[in-house]
């Protein structure tokens, strides 16, 4: 009991959230410890062997732009890369990479091991308490750790219970043991806990699959990295395959539905809507004849294959029957069965947008602990929680990313304002500012912030500034260069179903036409400089979508105007004359930091917001408020 170690920041959990939190805190100079229940599961991907995807690709690029690690590591160990949604517009272009799971874990663990100021340790924290201004964490082996700030990044470990048909047992993901005491300790502390559920499909043996009649899915020819630090991106190394369920699959599932813990009522946790099990899909959409599934390799050093789309909590004997109805899987051998897992989360409504608990200064939450789902969502929150833990210790202003800056900001705002009713997945439709929050400009939006915080090094910063300079120059150029009409040009214009020109036209005006691309104009644009396609793409998007970008920027500044009206931390809303009862209840519960947040709470009406604004104005220095109001 007498052995005590002192840290500034302690991170509980070394999954995607914990890794980013630990690295950020250590890189910002704080003495940091990262605890994992098992050091062989650091950076584990217990579900799909891929990173990125729609909106998630945005998150990874944003993490990279702020100085996080996920993008770089993915680039180092990807097996196949695809840019999704090409042709649907720049707002929804999303990068996704299949990764080598074991390599990913290896690289991440090594990065933690070699990080200055960071100590990675295998330990299960069983108790958390507060003494004076410090957090005391006790391990199962009775070692005490003191910390000024704690980041909870417990993933699905907290009170984890695995369900496979009628069988259920206490377990973390991938057979690692769970954290069975920490949840109780958090409840004693006063943290409000909810129960969630998620699930994963089986891993099967590659040689037991017949690939002959399956549709292959290849990676892109031209591979774009996630990270701006990646200069030499590798090649595609694997192929994925597509197959379909059929009537027989449905029959097997429906005949055995009573053996699913979801349908027998054994699972109380709320499952994700976006990631339904195959039995959910079949029950909820009975008219659908077949469901698509993907067969994805888990790594180069293993023959385990992941069956995307086939997550289930049916008993293992049913799983074998069910999978074997699918073309290509007739003789499939299950190496690891599919399972559902229930776990505890902290209700995210208890946090500020800094991810710090309102009631518990120095306690932060990140990742699945906050009710989100997905590696990328976890890493994004881990990064913000780690940064803010460090900034707090350094007594600096916290990092608050609003909805106008990033998907990271949108994710956090949704979690802390709307709470989590089921595991939260990022989607492009979650952002009202999606034409501004693109993957291609993540660096522009966030690298200056990362630099200011101290996570962007000199070299990266200089490269960023150079890209910006070239981009500005090119924008200036296309605004001055005039393209003369010619038969060749008009042929191109007409072939693209857009009107020919009769006199000289500015290059920018041709580029504004949705049908015309930079490439189309190459031979007519003789003063074009040799600059990277990345910059050309940025310029083209800004020109083509200028109207939309301006419009959304206006909406963002309107939103920010309200975000700047800060509400006092200990405000008693029931004291404010004129608020409706429902609004008082909601506001008291969520304690919004500012008027902007208050306006997004359901149950708070525009009239309530007016009352709050006036109350604020009467309460505080009137001149300040006035000058702000006048600057609308």
């Amino acid at each position, binding site marked *: 009991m007498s052995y005590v170690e002192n840290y500034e920041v302690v991170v509980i959990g070394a999954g995607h959230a914990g890794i980013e939190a630990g690295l950020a805190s250590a890189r910002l100079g704080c003495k940091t410890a990262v605890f994992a229940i098992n050091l062989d599961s650091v950076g584990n991907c217990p579900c799909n062997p891929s990173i990125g995807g729609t909106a998630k690709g945005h998150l990874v690029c944003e993490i990279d732009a702020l100085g996080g690690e996920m993008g770089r590591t993915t680039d180092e160990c990807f097996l196949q890369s695809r840019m999704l949604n090409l042709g649907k517009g720049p*707002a929804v272009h*999303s990068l996704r990479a299949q990764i080598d799971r074991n390599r990913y874990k290896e690289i991440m663990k090594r990065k933690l091991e070699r990080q200055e100021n960071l100590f990675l340790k295998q330990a299960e924290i069983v108790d958390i308490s507060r003494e004076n201004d410090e957090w005391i964490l006790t391990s199962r082996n009775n070692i005490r750790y003191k910390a000024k700030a704690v980041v909870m990044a417990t993933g699905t470990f907290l009170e984890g219970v695995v369900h496979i048909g009628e069988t259920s047992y206490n377990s973390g993901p991938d057979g690692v043991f769970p954290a069975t005491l920490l949840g109780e300790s958090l409840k004693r502390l006063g943290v409000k806990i909810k129960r969630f559920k998620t699930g994963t499909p089986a891993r099967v043996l590659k040689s037991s699959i017949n690939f002959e009649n399956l549709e292959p899915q290849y990676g892109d020819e031209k591979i774009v990295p996630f990270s701006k630090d990646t200069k030499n991106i590798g090649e595609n190394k694997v192929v994925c395959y597509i197959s379909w369920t059929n009537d027989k699959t449905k029959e097997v599932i429906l005949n055995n539905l009573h053996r699913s813990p979801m349908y027998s009522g054994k699972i109380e946790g709320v499952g994700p809507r976006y990631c339904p099990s195959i039995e959910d899909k079949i029950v909820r*959409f009975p008219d659908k004849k077949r469901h698509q599934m993907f067969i994805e390799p888990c790594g180069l050093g293993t023959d385990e294959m992941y069956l995307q789309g086939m997550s289930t909590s049916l008993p293992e004997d049913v799983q074998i029957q069910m999978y074997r109805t699918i073309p290509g899987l007739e003789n499939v051998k299950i190496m690891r069965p599919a399972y559902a897992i229930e776990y505890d989360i902290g209700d995210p409504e208890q946090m500020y947008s800094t991810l710090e608990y309102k009631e518990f200064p120095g306690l932060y939450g990140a990742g699945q602990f906050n009710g989100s789902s997905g590696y990328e969502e976890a890493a994004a929150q881990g990064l913000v929680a780690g940064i803010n833990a460090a900034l707090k210790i350094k007594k600096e202003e916290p990092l608050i990313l609003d909805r106008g800056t990033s998907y990271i900001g949108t994710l956090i705002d949704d979690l802390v304002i709307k709470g989590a009713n089921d595991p939260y997945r990022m989607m492009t439709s979650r952002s009202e500012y999606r034409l501004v929050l693109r993957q291609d400009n993540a660096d522009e939006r966030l690298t200056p912030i990362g630099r200011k915080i101290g996570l962007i090094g000199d070299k990266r910063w200089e490269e960023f500034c150079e890209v910006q300079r070239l981009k500005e120059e090119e924008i200036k150029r296309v605004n001055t260069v005039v393209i003369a009409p010619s038969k060749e040009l008009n042929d191109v214009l007409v072939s693209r179903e857009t009107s020919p020109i009769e006199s000289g036209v500015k290059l920018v005006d041709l580029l504004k036409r949705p049908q015309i691309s930079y490439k189309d104009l190459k031979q007519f644009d003789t003063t074009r400089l040799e600059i990277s396609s990345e910059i050309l793409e940025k310029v083209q998007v800004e020109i083509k979508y200028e109207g939309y970008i301006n419009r959304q920027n206006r909406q963002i500044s309107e939103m920010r105007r309200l975000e700047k009206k800060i509400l006092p931390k200990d405000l008693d809303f029931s004291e404010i004359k004129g608020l409706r009862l429902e609004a008082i209840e909601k506001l008291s519960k969520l304690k919004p930091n500012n008027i902007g947040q208050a306006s997004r709470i359901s149950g708070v009406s525009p*009239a309530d917001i007016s009352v709050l604004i006036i109350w604020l104005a009467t309460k505080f220095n009137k001149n300040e408020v006035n000058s702000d109001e006048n600057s609308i």
Partner: protein
Amino acid sequence: MSDTIAAIATAQGVGGIGVVRISGEDAFSIAENVFKPYFGQQKGCISNLGGYRAKYGKIIHNNEFIDEAIALVFKAPNSYTGENVVEISCHGGMYLTKRLLRAVFESGARPAEPGEFTKRAFLNGKMNLSQAEAVMDLISAKGEKSNKIAYSFLEGTAGKNITKIKNNIVDIVANLSVWADYPEDEVPAVDENTLKIGVEKVYNDVLSLIKNYDTCKILKEGVKTAIIGRPNVGKSTLMNLLSGFEKSIVTDIPGTTRDVIEESVMLGDIPLLLVDTAGIRDTDNVIEQIGVKKAKESIGMSDVIFLVLDASAGILEQDRELIDKCNPKRTIVILNKCDLNKKIEKEELLSTFSDRIVEISAINGEGIEKLKEIFENIVGISDIEPSNMVISNERQLNVMNNVKKILEEALEEIDQKMTFDAVTVLLQDAVEKIMEITGESASEAVVNKIFSKFCVGK
């Protein structure tokens, strides 16, 4: 920089004049859009005027004359709100004032929130704390009231129509979103044609909603009712009785009312937009002739006609001409001056007007209850169907006009082959606008729709 708001500043109901107040940065230019001065240049007629100065002119909108008016200019910070303010006074009555207000909205102002002028006044340092607190009470009271109105509105037919439009756009946005967010799932691909047809359909629904506004607002703003009759049968006395207010000049000289006077009054539960007309007779007086012409026109333009006959005089030739002009199903024959010696018996008119005949004395108020009863019946059987009511106020009309603009833009962008991410943003904007009425969150609605409608996810 603040946006520009407008509202009717005078009390709703009967009044000598109606004032529309415009406040905000663009107050002057917006006023110049609707106000044409009788003297001097149109351009800068308001903005070049000094503070506390007035200009006489007319309100013209969409090339249509609305009313004569006075524009009064207040320059920031010397105004009620501390911003640039224009107050346009027109002739009273809700009808004209609302038309003026609508013209102002269509020129760029947005409807003021409850208490917003006062809020701005306070925030610009024009009020002290206790005044501001009084305003807070007011705002919250109004907020609650408008919530109640919004609620009952959403429950009714009007709400159903708007909800239908909202659901249709949400459907389209959900289709677009799921197609972008789940590129590898089996979801229907969105093609230009289907998208266009979908958006056009919603656009047409919005359009007819807006068009219906005028026909439907009569129940909200009044059943247009003309009082006609030959001179000096007591039309103005009746009007004054109904409005409880000496508006028409009453004399015993035939031809006193030379213009059409409009008034909004309640008859039972139904608001009435009352048009008092010049007595219809052949006259040499030019001004009176115009009045007579207008009175004849108002027979055709009214929903209901009060045909006033002088019971003490009997049915004259002129009365017969009028009887022929009126659609008997929508006409109530009012036998006035029944306190005097009656020379008309109801029975003479029964075959034409059946039970839509009432004997009254406008001077002492006898028979008004009976008139109410008949009127309510006639409104029930005429073409006015409450279920046609779709948009219930100017604010909602304003929202639907915004939605219409956005949908027009979206259709244009689809034609221009703009990528669908941009079109989605426009449509989601439209959803957000509609949800200002219903108070929901647009992105939430889309996400919920995706999961209820599509089988997606790994």
